[in-house]
């Protein structure tokens, strides 16, 4: 049997509905809630059943044509992984080095990952933009942006 996109999707959602249903049963109820027509578990239980039923329906009615199999050739997963890793790093950088430097690193890293190698372009596209955004946020819109834990530790908060 060929495994197609609908089979994979159906299986994923079937597993999700089982896990969701198990956790739905663990939602704490208030005393006496079990006698009420509606409580915190009502909708989650119904959704788990509904999702399970629909996943089974998808598995049963899955299209098995030629174009229905999952083909991952030609996709640049490595680059996407690097970009998303950079997004996560940006979140950490915000905490440690502050908004301005984190933005600068994020943009230069992003341009570099996507193939821009000219130092002049890298700097011209990132430095004025980062400084401009930082100035607009802090000076024009009066938004407080924390300087970053690293600066606080080095120079005192």
């Amino acid at each position, binding site marked *: 049997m060929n495994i197609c996109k609908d089979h994979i999707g159906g299986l994923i959602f079937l597993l999700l509905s089982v896990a969701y249903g198990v956790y739905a049963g663990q939602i704490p109820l208030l005393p006496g809630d079990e006698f009420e027509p509606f409580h*915190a578990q009502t*909708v989650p239980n119904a959704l788990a059943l509904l999702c399970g039923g629909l996943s089974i329906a998808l598995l049963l009615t899955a299209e098995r044509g030629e174009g229905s199999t999952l083909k991952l050739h030609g996709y640049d997963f490595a680059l996407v992984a690097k970009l998303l890793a950079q997004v996560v790093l940006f979140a950490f950088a915000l905490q440690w080095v502050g908004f301005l430097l984190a933005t600068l690193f994020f943009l230069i890293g992003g341009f570099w990952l996507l193939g821009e190698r000219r130092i002049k372009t890298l700097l011209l596209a990132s430095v004025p933009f980062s400084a401009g955004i930082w100035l607009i946020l802090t000076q024009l819109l009066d938004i407080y942006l924390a300087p970053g834990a690293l600066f606080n530790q080095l120079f005192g908060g």
Partner: protein
Amino acid sequence: MLDGIFTGLSTAVMPFNLMMVVVGCFAGTFIGMLPGLGPISAVALMIPITYGLDPSSGIILMAGVYYGAVFGGSTSSILINAPGCASTVVTSFDGYPLAQQKQAGKALALAAYSSFTGGTIGAIILLFAAPALASVSLSFQSSDYFALMILGLTAVAAFSGKGQVIKALIMTVFGLMIATVGTDTTSGTPRFTFGNIDLIDGISFLLLAMATFALTEVVMTVLKGQHKEKDEQMDMASLGSMKLSREEVKHIAPTVGRSSVFGFLVGVLPGAGATIASFLAYGLERNLASAKEKLKFGKGALRGLAAPESANNAASTGSFVPLLTLGIPGSGTTAIMLGALIAYGIQPGPRLFVDNPDVFWSVIISMYFGNLVLLILNLPLIPYISRLLVIPRPILIPLILFFSITGVYLVSFNSFDIHMMAIITVIAIALKLLEFPMAPMLLGFILGGIMENNLARALVISDGSFDFLWDRPLTLGIVVVAIVVLCIPPLLELVNKRRANKGQATDRGAEAAISEGEG
């Protein structure tokens, strides 16, 4: 109604709101021109900006971006045969051939005039239809609301395309599941938070919308390697005249009128939206054309360009009817606007007309202004706006990524939200590769909380019985319509399959008879 129109007019003509229309139209046109980014992404990118504005200005800005993005999508369809969004795919059928015949200017002008007429006719119908529907829906009770939510969710799934109904329903349920994360509003107990304090308030709408529509769409272009592709250079010198002759105007006028009304009606249906409207209007116009004219379709027929352009703009306007009057979004884009309105503390639906008449009417009035801005400002500036596309993709993509991420961060100032965005993006990419539609998920997420509250209220009132679903004729009527809407696509598919099988059997029978005869 006149009072309302004046209220809306006075709000919409405020200099700041007029500026919002202009800025929205420009920003929307630019984002809409970028292949891969459509109106949903454009409106999602605007949400963080609107958080700092008052509700009327925020929604006016979003409506302007919506129109601009549809218009921008048409421009790139005509000039470089790269539709910015699904609703302008049909525009490229006849728009691009016209551009190849050195009539790009005429095609752009025709698209703008048709969009303007479609949007204007749509806005006029909306002016009368929305208050009428809103006054009827004022009598709605919680059971009716619950049924209405069911109708909205099923309609979106039903119109999601061939073979996609079950997938769209699963995604709707998935959205409802995500909506249950956080503290339960009725009992105050935490659900699916796994002890994480950052999940106590649930997943924010802004985060989900930005991750699934802005971040994911941009990352998908990188995944497909589109960032390496160079945009086809637009030859602005060979744009040609932007004028239409009197004969041409006479020729397309009935088409524009027909397609506008038709597009509006399709747009009103929850879930149908501008894409279906443009395809149906194109098909309708080709069927109505004479045999001689039919041959021109696909080779640069003016009617073939005018029909989808009028229809998609009228449908965009039409999709505001269910949003403003019933609180049910007609499309993915209006779903995002619904989320933004809820974030403002405004509940779209029948009460909007009574409680926030300024928002209700100013949106309707500003739609007309939006169309006007597109026609008199954007059209002449197209050669200049399209130059912005010259910015290389390796520079543009990180900038859009940055705006998506900081848009969320600057609202919550919590870096956990950025981690969540990355996780949701990974899930969304996997689901997109498996061809699961995203819009029903967002719709389910937005309507989830309201639906649960109405169900709770209706169940408590009816003492735990589901009788409320058929006690009131109105509730029963809506439930029946929801069931019919849900059953039609699978039934149609079944009938078509049977017909195809029968056809094949007849062909085989005929072939056998012929071969026997030959033998």
